[in-house]
């Protein structure tokens, strides 16, 4: 079952994009879009640029498509920063007011990194991604940016569902049977989340008469439903398994894009609507350790990184639960940095997948010899996710742990500290070690194509730029920052924590031997248990049907037999009588009537 999945997919991926020399349509399309949106710039929703652009993709030449893929995210980024800080466009819809362009510091921060990712993901997929995937990517990224500018719950919901469609299509576009199955399971989870969210929004509207996107408590049912709807997209328990189930089935460029938007828009929504909700601290901590444990058990390199998404989002969810200004800054900054380094890690893994066609750690190893550039970018991403000094993780994750310490949450702080060590263990060292080092697998693949390398350079550069000049990121955080990440003490304690975690990795290397296994998760219930129940139900229904059918057939047969007995050739009612007996009967009747008359 596994075997035929990869090679055909790679064949499709490697199909060269047809080149044509029409430059005119690019210019026209871009100018029209630019002019149209810039003329209305106070009112134009930045997310719509890519959503409308996505509609053009199937109809343009390959050249124009490349221009749109790279140009639209840049145009969006410009628009994101042109929206005035106090902008709020209000439209009447039925009895409610909608605010499709509502500027907030948090929204602008997330929209900025989303636009950067749409550009980097587009660059990475140039010449690799099929038009269907490109279209879906633009729709997906545009809708994510739409969410960040939503000033009301209904607008948020509409973009939220568009994202589900876009992301499902990206997974589907990989074209393998496994990807089709995974995309359907993914869609089902997100439709479920969407229904719960919509129920919450409607309930909230009925209860309060308002759709405004403002902080809610968790003291009413509609608010709880909204919280659940958000958490489904964040990969919170019990529905975490959709991330490692679905994302790694996408193409290399597909998974890079997928890692950035869905979970992080959920972080954005939680940040705006549920800051300081205490339950989120514990949900976040669960996610943090869930991600580590499952990633430690995993063998597929991109599934390791998918579990690591849950782990990282757990840090953010926990910080949102703490809810102080420092913590919320930390969640936002960590999301920003995480999107970039996780995409970088996945680009590195995607390059390996594209060039070797292999995805399991048991098949890989020693690749640093022939893919030094890819390995280096993978290591930069790994150092950043582990929060090594001079990388973006160091200056962002520490905001969250400090917030826990400032609030006197000792247990939370100790757990976050252990988890920080665990991040180095499960992603920071496990991923590069098993893919690029460990034993020599004998594979000597070449480096991935130039566009892929360019995208990796871009994101590596950003990881280090933010790590070296944290002020650039701190300046656009929602609240003023007084925190200083680079103190001698902080650098020393962080290095101790991480390097000894690494030491533990090598000491326990024998315990971490990769096996050809997957780990059961709660998705077992809907993939196996419910499936088995469904099969059993189908069996029962089929046998009941067969029994009923048998009875009906028997009854019909009896009816037919009875009819045949009376009306058939031998039936009493159909018997032919000899003429003689007729004459006899006539004679008898005549005699009888004579007798009657005589009397």
């Amino acid at each position: 079952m596994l075997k035929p999945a990869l090679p055909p997919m790679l064949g499709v991926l490697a199909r060269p994009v047809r080149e044509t020399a029409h430059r005119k349509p690019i210019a026209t399309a871009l100018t029209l879009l630019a002019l149209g949106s810039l003329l209305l710039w106070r009112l134009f929703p930045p997310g719509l640029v890519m959503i409308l652009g996505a509609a053009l993709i199937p109809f343009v030449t390959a050249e124009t498509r490349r221009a749109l893929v790279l140009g639209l995210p840049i145009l969006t980024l410009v628009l994101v920063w042109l929206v005035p800080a106090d902008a709020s466009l209000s439209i009447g819809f039925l009895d409610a007011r909608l605010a499709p362009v509502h500027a907030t510091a948090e929204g602008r921060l997330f929209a900025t990194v989303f636009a950067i990712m749409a550009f980097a993901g587009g660059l990475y997929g140039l010449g690799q991604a099929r038009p269907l995937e490109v279209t879906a990517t633009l729709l997906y990224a545009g809708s994510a940016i739409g969410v960040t500018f939503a000033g009301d719950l209904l607008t948020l919901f509409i973009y939220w569902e568009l994202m589900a469609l876009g992301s499902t299509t990206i997974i589907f576009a990989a074209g393998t049977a496994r990807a089709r199955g995974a995309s359907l399971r993914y869609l089902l989870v997100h439709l479920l989340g969407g229904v719960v969210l919509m129920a919450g929004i409607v309930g909230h509207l009925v209860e309060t008469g308002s759709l405004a996107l403002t902080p809610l408590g968790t003291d009413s049912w509609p608010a709880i439903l909204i919280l659940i709807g958000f958490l489904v997209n964040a990969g919170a328990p019990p529905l975490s398994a959709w991330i490692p189930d679905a994302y790694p089935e996408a193409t290399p460029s597909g998974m890079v894009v997928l890692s950035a938007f869905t979970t992080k828009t959920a972080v954005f929504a939680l940040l705006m609507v549920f800051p300081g909700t205490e339950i989120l601290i514990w949900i976040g901590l669960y996610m943090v350790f869930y991600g580590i444990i499952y990633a430690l058990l995993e063998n597929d390199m991109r599934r390791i990184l998918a579990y690591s998404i849950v782990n990282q989002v757990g840090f953010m969810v926990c910080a949102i639960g703490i809810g102080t200004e420092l913590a919320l800054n930390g969640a936002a900054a960590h999301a920003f940095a995480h999107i970039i380094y996780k995409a970088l890690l996945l680009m590195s893994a995607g390059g390996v997948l594209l060039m070797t066609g292999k995805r399991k750690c048991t098949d890989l190893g020693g690749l640093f010899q022939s893919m030094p550039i890819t390995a280096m970018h993978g290591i930069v991403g790994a150092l950043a996710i582990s929060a090594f000094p001079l990388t973006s993780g160091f200056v962002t994750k520490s905001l969250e742990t400090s917030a826990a310490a400032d609030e006197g949450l000792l247990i939370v702080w100790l757990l976050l500290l252990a988890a920080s060590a665990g991040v180095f263990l499960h992603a920071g060292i496990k991923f590069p070690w098993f893919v690029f080092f460990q034993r020599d697998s004998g594979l000597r693949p070449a480096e991935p194509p130039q566009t892929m390398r360019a995208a990796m350079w871009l994101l590596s550069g950003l990881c280090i730029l933010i790590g070296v000049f944290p002020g650039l990121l701190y300046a656009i955080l929602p609240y003023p920052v007084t925190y200083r990440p680079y103190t001698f003490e902080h650098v020393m304690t962080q290095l101790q924590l991480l390097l000894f975690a690494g030491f533990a990795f090598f000491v326990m290397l024998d315990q971490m031997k990769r096996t050809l296994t997957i780990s059961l998760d709660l998705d077992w219930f809907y993939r196996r248990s419910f499936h088995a129940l469904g099969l059993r139900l189908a069996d029962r229904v089929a046998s009941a049907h067969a029994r009923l059918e048998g009875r009906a057939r028997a009854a019909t047969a009896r009816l037919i037999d009875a009819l045949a007995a009376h009306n058939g050739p031998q039936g009493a009612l159909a018997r032919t009588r000899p003429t003689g007996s007729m004459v006899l009967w006539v004679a008898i009747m005549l005699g009888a009537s004579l007798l009657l008359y005589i009397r």
Partner: protein
Amino acid sequence: MAEQIHWLYRKENRPKLWAIQITILALTLLPGLFIQVHHHFPAERFSLDTSPGFFAWFGFISCAWMVALAKFLGRFIKRDDTYYDA
């Protein structure tokens, strides 16, 4: 032409690699003896975090614990990777 084995994979270099690692670990521990880490929890009467090397052993032990936990859970939840394909 047989490719030469990369020096990282040569058996004779193993001890050197371990030695380098242990030297680096020792170097990160060293400054802790001379500088005082600030109290993260002054109000909670928790002062373990100010002792030298706290972050080092805490990192090591929590990782060892997580590997052990994963190994233990793996006994129950690991399946062949073709489990869902059947």
